[in-house]
């Protein structure tokens, strides 16, 4: 088809790698999976890696003096190297495998936060953060007496940069910000935020869960101090994610979880922690999930993150255009050029849960609710929204299905 030649990538070909995307539901409705901001699907290559590892290479890592443990350890450490290259980290041991973005942010809040933040200090967030980048800081405030502050957004869903200079003060110890909002899709100017934060002596943590899977990431040029993201939002298994941190910071931080692996020596009266990265990987890590995440990185790299980003912005632009033409649909967030592949919206006088239920009849899977961002929804003056979120395997035709399904929902609710 003519349209395929103009696209940065070929979704029809790539879709064939994803067994679940050929699902037909409700009798004759092809699955239209538009809930990728919640979690993505897995290509055959990742699924095969999981099976292959369990069938041929699995033992605990860094422990056994035996052939199988060496195999497992090599694959696990190879996955760490793949992550390092993928995000442009200077050192492999700066890559800490966690349980996910939430685990990574909690690690920083507990370990760095408890050691470095006190009463009167401030942690600056933005109004568009996911609960996973809010609650750990509220918990830190409960423990230490620090204050949690929020940078405002404008009515278009863009961060109000001019307010930052007043909000970042000599009390600010850390600015924690999403690189891409999981609701608005807004791409935040992280490098600029880093510049201002560092000028005031504050560190920056980036919740990159919605950007690392969708656009090139280079932590060196980003300039941030901590970067957190999840495997399951980038074709990998759930239960694994990454905290990248600057070596000097990670070295100075006390361990978070205590247990096996994270120690050099244990005595009756205490312990000495291990070096990085083991210091922050207590217990048996998500071995096979991390190896699977490595395969996901291979897959994404082969496509090219630049092309994925360009293609998703095309899908976003198409969704904006068609949803606006539909009428009675209010799109949240800024214009498509400021967005990743996330389009949230409300439909006049149809609640988001009813929208989701009606779209499901057409095989369309979207998210409805507050998307773990209640403060943002309060700022927007709504309690819930519907969210369509794309990945490279979504097609322009699937957006047509989404819009047709919405048209049918409006008709059923007598809103046309």
């Amino acid at each position, binding site marked *: 088809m003519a349209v395929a030649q103009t696209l940065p990538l070929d979704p029809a070909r790539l879709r064939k790698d994803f067994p679940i995307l050929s699902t037909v539901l409700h009798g004759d409705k092809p699955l239209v999976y538009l809930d990728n901001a919640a979690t993505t699907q897995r290509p055959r290559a990742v699924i095969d890696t999981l099976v292959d590892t369990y069938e041929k290479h699995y033992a605990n890592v860094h422990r056994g003096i035996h052939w199988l443990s060496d195999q497992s350890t090599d694959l696990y450490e190879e996955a760490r190297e793949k992550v390092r290259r993928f995000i442009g980290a200077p050192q492999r041991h700066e890559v800490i495998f966690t349980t996910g973005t939430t685990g990574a942010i909690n690690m920083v809040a507990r370990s760095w936060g408890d050691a470095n933040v006190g009463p009167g200090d401030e942690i600056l967030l933005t109004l568009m953060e996911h609960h996973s980048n809010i609650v750990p800081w509220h918990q830190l405030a409960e423990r230490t007496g620090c204050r949690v502050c929020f940078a405002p957004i404008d009515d278009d869903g863009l961060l109000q940069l001019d307010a930052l200079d007043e909000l970042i003060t000599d009390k600010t110890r850390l600015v924690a910000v999403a690189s891409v909002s999981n609701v608005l899709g807004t791409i935040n100017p992280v490098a600029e935020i880093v510049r201002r934060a560092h000028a005031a002596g504050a560190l920056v943590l980036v919740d990159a869960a919605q950007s690392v899977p969708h656009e090139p990431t280079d932590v060196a040029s980003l300039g941030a101090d901590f970067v957190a993201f999840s495997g399951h939002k980038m074709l990998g298994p759930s239960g694994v994610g990454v905290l990248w941190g600057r070596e000097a910071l990670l070295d100075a931080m006390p361990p978070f979880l205590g247990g096996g692996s994270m120690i050099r020596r244990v005595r009756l009266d205490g312990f000495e922690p291990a070096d990085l990265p083991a210091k922050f990987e207590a217990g048996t890590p998500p071995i096979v999930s991390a190896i699977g995440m490595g395969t996901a990185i291979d897959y994404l790299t082969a496509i090219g993150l630049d092309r994925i980003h360009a293609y998703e912005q095309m899908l976003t632009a198409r969704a904006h255009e068609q949803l606006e033409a539909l009428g009675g649909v209010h799109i949240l967030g800024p214009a498509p050029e400021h967005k990743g592949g996330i389009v949230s919206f409300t439909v006049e006088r149809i*609640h988001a849960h009813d929208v989701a*239920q009606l779209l499901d009849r057409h095989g369309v899977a979207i998210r409805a609710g507050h998307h773990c961002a209640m403060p943002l929804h309060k700022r927007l003056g709504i309690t819930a929204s519907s969210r369509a979120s794309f990945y490279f395997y979504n097609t322009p035709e699937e957006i047509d299905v989404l819009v047709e399904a919405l048209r049918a929902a409006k008709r059923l609710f007598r809103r046309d």
Partner: protein
Amino acid sequence: MDSRDEEEIYQEHILDHYDDPFHRGHCPGATHAHEDDNPLCGDVVRVELRIDPQGRVEQAWFEGDGCCVSQASASMLMEKIEGLTLDELKHFSAADMLGLYGARLTPNRQKCCLLSWRVVQEAVHSPIANGGADGSPDAGPSPNRSSDGNSKSADDGTQRRADSRK
């Protein structure tokens, strides 16, 4: 074109209740009130009742925010319970509520439908302090012992909903 079971959720008379609800607003001279939400989805319903000295529901009003199922079912319930005695109300079961709604609901959507029913069952135990609202001189009876805990949670809930609507 659409599967029939789902279609039933949004029957015409249900949409009528959603678009043009019965007694949506404040109950004049309310004697009892309660509010609650479904934590999972955030649906909120507040019910205000005016119960006469003989223990009969004179008026039933609701306010709320949420999906069609939660709001339309609340409207149906208000219409249904006006005129019932407290004893009759007590015997109006969850199964009766699902029957009143009519359409077949999945377990998740049943929670939406039962929200207003739960709130009504609590409201009859939740007399408003100092009697009726809107300056009504008649506070009405307290058919059951006052429960400060319930009244308080109703007040907290009101505050929460008001905030979420800013």
